[in-house]
């Protein structure tokens, strides 16, 4: 009797445990469904549904990867950044402002890279009031952080590949995926770093 009830209890406990444990992972179902239902359009091929190593880690760990995983992948991303051969990181901030304003690029009807979409998510220059708040304000970026070479390098690198600094950042990897050219990234870096840029007034 005792044994039987103990057995029942064990079964009950197992049942409760199975209810309490997280449900099965639906991500493979989701991906299979999307691969069946989506089609390539314009510049956006079906390969865009595939996860690269960074996306896979962020999906797997719900944007909170363990330190070891994050460190390893960030190092890889950082190593893949192509720094300008001429060593110069600052372009023309005026051109940078235009790129920051432009939200086009990499969508179906876009030929390729075009704009940086910066204002979609960030406050940048003081004159544009229509700015997003998904990312932090970049107003007075260098005024607050300093104009030194290390900050310049960080700004350029962050634009090139935000994931090299914060693995599951919501910011696109503009240089890594070819959404912006080297010159465009230099211009954006100037927008953030040039003492004459309105950003630093």
């Amino acid at each position, binding site marked *: 009797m005792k044994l039987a009830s103990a057995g029942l209890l064990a079964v009950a406990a197992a049942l409760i445990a199975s209810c309490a444990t997280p449900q099965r992972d639906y991500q493979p179902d989701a991906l299979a469904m999307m691969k069946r239902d989506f089609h390539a359009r314009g510049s956006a091929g079906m390969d865009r*549904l595939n996860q690269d190593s960074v996306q896979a880690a962020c999906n797997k760990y719900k944007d909170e990867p363990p330190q070891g995983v994050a460190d390893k992948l960030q190092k890889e991303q950082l190593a893949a950044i192509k720094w300008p051969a001429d060593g110069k990181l600052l372009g023309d901030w005026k051109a940078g402002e235009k790129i920051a304003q432009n939200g086009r690029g990499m969508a179906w009807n876009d030929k390729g890279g075009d704009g940086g979409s910066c204002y979609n998510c960030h406050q940048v220059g003081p004159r544009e009031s229509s700015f997003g708040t998904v990312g932090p304000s970049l107003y007075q970026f260098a005024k607050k952080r300093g104009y030194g070479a290390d900050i310049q390098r960080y700004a350029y690198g962050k634009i090139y590949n935000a994931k090299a600094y914060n693995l599951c950042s919501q910011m696109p990897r503009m240089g890594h995926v070819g959404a912006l050219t080297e010159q465009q990234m230099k211009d954006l870096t100037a927008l953030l770093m040039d003492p004459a840029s309105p950003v630093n007034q």
Partner: protein
Amino acid sequence: MKRALVLGTLAVACAAAAQTPDPTAAEFDKFREIMEQDNPAELFEVKGEDLWKTPRGPKNASLEKCDLGLGPGVVKGAYAQLPRYFADIDRVMDAEARIVHCMITLQGFTQAELAKAPFSSLVRTPEPVSIVTYVAAQSRGMKFASPQNHVKERAAYETGKAIFFYRAGAFDFSCASCHGVDDKRIRTQPLPNFTKPEQAIRAVQGWPGYRMTGGVMHSLQWRLNDCYRQQRFPEPGYASETLSALLTYVTVNANGHVYRGPGIKR
């Protein structure tokens, strides 16, 4: 250029507005309400009712035998209880997917022709868009109650959730990149957090919607399609199971909230 000038003059006012409760948004809401009183969406509602009741297509049949989930021909309240599972096709369908299904099975249209140009333009409003506007209007004032009884309805919710959080594409975005956190905005557009019930209603409220930009009627199928364009993904199939799953996820999250009928959008 003009825009830049205008924005320049607004900068001071809006910079202040960004910190405090947004008076611009309040002003938008006030006049949005006025515009909802006389919403051109109603023109499409009338058109949709006519399309529902008129025999059409190769089979010269009306849609009055279409089962939107509450029995053949029952339109009242059906929209608020979609997406749901349909045994006849063994899948969960959202309102427009179901209407398309009925147009195929009852009227003899083909999926290919309906999916060819499924979204409104300045010169053309596809028939399913008007029909879904009519159907949606018949749930005005009712609470969303997308069911989670059938095993496939629960699976659609979970799959939809996984789709919602799936990051990929050129910009590493998922739906959650924009709609997974509180109190953010893109440019000046507020971004509701669809993972929370009280905000998820904003994913479905006002749709189908008359869009002031262009003055065209759009449904949720269009809205989700445009999300994926901006997400830099490939294109989701029109009336596909993926979109039904996503709509299941957001609608179930919004269950219990009152649907106000076809709306007006920026």
